């Protein structure tokens, strides 16, 4: 299992969007007041995660780019590249992913090949953590980049750096792993554990099981397994994506539903054509809108079977918009369709005229065919019902 991070992804993305306008001043991509990414070359003290104020203090002429400015850009290029070197890709952040590496013996080769693809096109350095499982792969990379790892097992090249966690060291590593690198724990859980005096993953093992269950709830077993070195997380192949998302902002904020409706119509058409191409349907639609003063509206619709079709989506989205009950000026709206699954043939027959697979009837379920089949008579519903009533056909008395 490999965990990969591409440094400089967002910057390159922004660059691509801006064209060839490169100034000499360093550029920092800022999200929530902290540095998400920055240009190269950059001031040496700049680190990802550093507060912008601090960063700017060190480099007065630095340019700030808000996350909002690049958020709408398509961010799947990295994952696409990953999927070209390995079929099992689980996307994590736009600039990071997990690779299954199932059929490869040498993870280093795969990473090297990927680095050729993405550096310098999409980013300027590829970092990789290799370990037995997902958790360890990411943890080892985070720990190394956070300064907590040693130099053993590191392979450094110009375009990529690989941090490998050998099998025999895995358990020890996990035991000693400080809680800040245990990226499954959320802040609250970390806090609780700290209060209990637990600072390393291995100490969770030493906890009393009842207590562990009490404080960590259902995840207690999960963490215990992790601490023992068993990674219970499977790789979920999420790329190519099973989700379709669109977002838009309204400036000035929309005060009536008209622009919202228009946007939803566009999205319905776009989603329908996307689904048709993929031969898929979506099982869940989530519509979110937000306004000023922290106002938020959400509406969701789930389907019992995958759905698609432009007409139907339009109706459903209009219904979702009504259901949301927007009551104030809307500054932005987002639509997400997920749980995409293939549609079976007879659903396709229900709507949409142009689809090539429409109109094909599903044959009757063979398991319902009666033993009479042996005698050459197909057991239709009519025949089965007549068996109860017609004395000539009867196999059993009505009782």
């Amino acid at each position, binding site marked *: 299992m490999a965990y990969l991070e591409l440094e400089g992804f967002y910057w390159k993305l922004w660059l691509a969007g801006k064209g060839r306008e490169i100034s000499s001043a360093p550029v920092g991509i800022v999200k929530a007041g902290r540095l998400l990414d920055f240009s190269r070359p950059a001031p040496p003290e700049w680190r990802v995660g550093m507060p912008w104020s601090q960063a700017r203090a060190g480099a007065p002429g630095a340019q700030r780019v808000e996350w909002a400015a690049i958020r709408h850009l398509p961010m799947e290029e990295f994952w696409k590249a990953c999927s070209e070197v390995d079929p099992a890709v689980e996307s994590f952040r736009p600039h990071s992913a997990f690779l299954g590496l199932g059929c490869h013996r040498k993870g280093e080769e795969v990473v090297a090949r990927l680095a050729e693809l993405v550096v310098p096109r999409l980013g300027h350095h590829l970092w990789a953590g290799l370990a037995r499982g997902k958790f360890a792969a990411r943890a080892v990379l985070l720990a190394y980049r956070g300064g907590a790892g040693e130099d053993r097992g590191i392979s450094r090249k110009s375009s990529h750096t690989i941090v490998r966690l050998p099998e025999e060291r895995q358990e020890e590593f996990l035991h000693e792993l400080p809680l800040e690198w245990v990226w499954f724990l959320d802040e609250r859980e970390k806090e609780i554990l700290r*209060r*209990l*005096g637990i600072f390393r993953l291995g100490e969770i093992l030493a906890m*009393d*099981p*009842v*207590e562990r269950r*009490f404080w960590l709830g259902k995840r207690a077993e999960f963490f215990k397994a992790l601490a023992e070195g068993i990674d219970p997380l499977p790789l979920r192949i999420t790329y190519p994506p099973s989700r379709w998302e669109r977002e838009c902002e309204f400036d000035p904020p929309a005060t009536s539903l008209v622009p919202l409706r228009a946007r939803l119509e566009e999205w319905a058409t776009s989603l329908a054509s996307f689904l048709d191409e993929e031969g898929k349907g979506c099982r869940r639609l989530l519509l979110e809108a*937000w306004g000023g*003063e*922290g*106002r*938020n509206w*959400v*509406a969701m*619709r789930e389907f*019992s079977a995958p759905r698609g079709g432009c007409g139907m989506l339009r*109706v*459903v989205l209009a*219904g*979702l918009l*009504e*259901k949301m*009950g927007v*009551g104030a000026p809307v500054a932005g709206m987002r639509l997400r369709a997920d749980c995409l699954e293939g549609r079976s043939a007879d659903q396709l027959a229900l709507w949409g005229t142009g689809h090539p697979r429409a109109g094909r009837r599903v044959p009757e379920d063979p398991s319902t065919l009666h033993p009479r089949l042996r005698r050459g008579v197909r057991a239709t*519903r009519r025949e*089965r*019902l*007549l068996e*109860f*009533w*017609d*004395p*000539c*056909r*009867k196999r059993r*008395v*009505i*009782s």
Partner: protein
Amino acid sequence: MYVPLHVHSPFSFLDGAASLRDLMERAAHCNCPAIALTDHNNLCGAVAFRREAERWGLKPLLGCEIDLEGGHHLVLLAMDEEGYANLCRLLTRAHLDSPRRQPRLRPEHLQGATEGLLALSGCRKGEIPSRILSGDLRGALEAARRYQSAFPGRFYLELEGCYLPGTRRLNDALWELAKFLRLPAVMTTNVHYAFPSQFPVHDILTCVRTLSRVDDVHPERKINAENYLKSPREMAELAREYPGVLQRTVEVAQRCQPLPVLGRLLTPHFPLPEGMGAEQMLRQLVYAGAREKYGRVTEKVRRRLERELEIICRLGYQEYFLVVWDLVRFARRKGIRHAGRGSAADSLVAYCLGITEVDALARGLLFERFLSLERAQKPDIDVDFDARYRDEVIRYAREKYGADRVAGVCTYNTFRARSAIRDLGKALGFPPQEIDRLAKRFSYVEADMIEEAVRRLPELRNGGLPLERYELLFELCSQVAGFPRHLGTHLGGIVIGPEPLEGVVPLQMAAKGITVCQFDKDYVEEVGLIKLDLLSLRTLSAVEDAVVAIRERHPQFDYQQIPLDDRETFRMINRGETVGVFQLESPAQRALQVRLGASDLEDIVASVALIRPGPIKGNMVEPFLARRHGRQEPRYLLPELEPILRKTYGVVLFQEQVIEIATTVAGFTPGEADRLRRAMTHHRSPEEMEELGRLFVEKARRRGVPEETAAAVFSHIKGYASYGFCEAHAAAFATTAFKTAYLLRHYPAEFFAALLSNQPMGYYPPRTLCVEAKRRGVRVLGPCVNRSGSRCQVEGRSVRLSLGYVRGVGPRTVQRILSCRPEGGFSSLEEFWRLTGVDGEAVPNLILCGAFDALDPHRRRLLRRWSILRSGGGREGEPWWREEVDGFRGPDFTPWEKICWEQEIVGIPLTDHFMACLRPRLACEGAVTAAEVQRCQPGQRVRVAGLPVRPHRPPTRSGRTVAFFTLEDETGLLEVTVFERNYHRYGHLLFGPQLLPLMVVGRVKKQGSRNFLVAEHLYALVPSGRRKSSC
């Protein structure tokens, strides 16, 4: 001409697809002289059938199709009264001697019990036809001989006319058999519906009954739509090859008399002392009671009592009254609180016997409303008992009169929109979650009003439902509207008969192990039995608890002696502060009280009667208030109306007044007046009211009343048609209402403790009651392991919740804790655990809701301690655990977390109110509290946030939809009104599946002395994940 002898009505429970009315109409249209009713294993529809058949000029033949052991069917028809009694007995045996819901008649039951009964060989499930079809002709012959000897001269072979495969063969065989055995033969079509177009309904109901889907194949599914009531021509066509079968059906009809016998009187027998007659004993008891109530029996009292006693004895109800008196006496002896209600309060005899608390003489209530010589109305006495002990009273009745003479009364659970959509939707193959979601939207809608509801109600329109898919479903639902789905038990209704009941009405076993009659409360009276309603009322339990608590500090307190003119109580009522008071709790009532300014009990009686759909829709409220306050002069359309309506300022409030108006103005006979009263109390008789209206106007005209005036008078009455109170009922309720208000005013702590001990009851949830209590200065303290008892109790000026409120702490656990609790209380968690051994989730729940706060207010630390204790902690070799425990320095839960835990575990936030925690954020947004709204100026625009309580949509006189709800925050309650337009926009927030805290923006309006809010915008306060607003 022919007579349909094998007919199923909707009382065949999910097997009949046409209403009795449709069937009778169709039969009349086909010129049938008579028609039979043969439902499956019951006679539920017997009374309704007889009435409906006679209305259409048909002779009713009563019978039923019984399941025999072995699975075959047999159709029985009762020829005379003895036959009817035998039929009832057979059905009772079939039900009671077999597992519940699987009645089976055994051959030994039939022996000696077939006098007066006719038998038909049945549909294809009858023994003879099924043997023939399976080729067992010898078996069919033997069976025919058996039936012939069991029903000598009264057994008929039944040919089928349904165009099924095998009909020809079957009919031919039966015809041969008839000739061979010299048995008479008839032809039927096994009628399950009136018209072929009703077949889809029948098919769907079959699916519901067999729990299958419409696509599935099941032997019960009929393959064609031929089970309808055919025309004589069609029958003639079918019977062409079998001469005489139709004529025989007419002969059968001639052999039977109309059944069941109606209009008899079967009063219970009361065991009288030696040498004393019933009347004598009744008289003795009544006068003894009168002396007790009045001190001295005045002439007025005597005259009234004599009149009542004469009517009672002439009608033959002396023993009935004795029975009721005896039950009430039993309750009194046992200390079970009780209160009579309903029209019995019209009777002074009932008052003197201690059955009711209302002095009919003083209030001028007419005895004739309850019992009169002219009307054929049976007395109906309802008594409320303390909910905890009502079953004990019923058990006493069974023991005293014999378990075979006492039975419950059933109800017919009918299809309403929700159940229809669920059942039929499932049968049509819709996925269960979809059906569930759809059904939840139709909470209070009748099945035939679905389409209209979809048009009118916003939460359905805007619910995001693709309504086109459901066209067929809604269509079918509207057709099954009102059909009985299954038999349920009437809560509290019992009948006591003079003889074993199984000869009068068929009995079957109900869910709780008691026997019930197959007739409901109305039908049971039509066959002559008298019903008694022994109801349970939690209010009485609460009153009992309160009185016991009050007596601890004021030993001479007597609930019966509460003055009914206490000024302070009236002041409190007039301020609308009646949350917790019986009958006066709802927002509508409180709003009314504020405007009414009640000053004596009569006003309370009027209020109880005013806030009902009848007076509201009939446009009575405003005129009443205006005239009561002297702002308007009562106008009487006719001089005759004045004495009747004077008491209520010219406004029709009580059912008695309607009866009186009908009698005085239009000269209705007592029978017609009774019909009017019945039409008024049953929701679904708009046609009946129309007809009565015409009759009224006609008769009034003949007495010289101008037509428009008569029509105007009747329109006043008609608006009343849904649900008005009878005065006695209102008076009975008003007394209890006032007394509970008195308790609330003078002993609030005890009263709230009692209310909280007896939840669920009343209008508001316990959470809201606590807010109100706090507003009155009574704090509600959370459960405490050292202080709480098994019920909520008074502690100083506060109320201490009982341990039973904690989730996971059941009655046994409570007992254990209480019995193990040492004198000074538990001193530590360890001691608690050691002494009680309570385990499981009870202890963490107790800790989290603060029950251990007296031992250690740091809940988190206690939790740690508990988990260590449970794991046997403090072991050797782990010294660092103990340090951690005792030296645990971490912070405790935040108030918000505490409240969330308390709400989850106890249902009441104890540390503080939800809204109190949000108050800083809400104040940033400019929201005011409910209490502050009371100080605002009318017309001011405010924002208030709170938890919505009990949203509802009562019918209004304008017919437009208005929604009301109460907004609760930490300072109190605020009433909010949402008018139609906004209701359509935000209704889904109020009535959707989930209630969230809301922010309401609206204008302040004044009503009386209180402000309320008219909402303009509503938002749900969803915790915003995206933007955390910080002030």
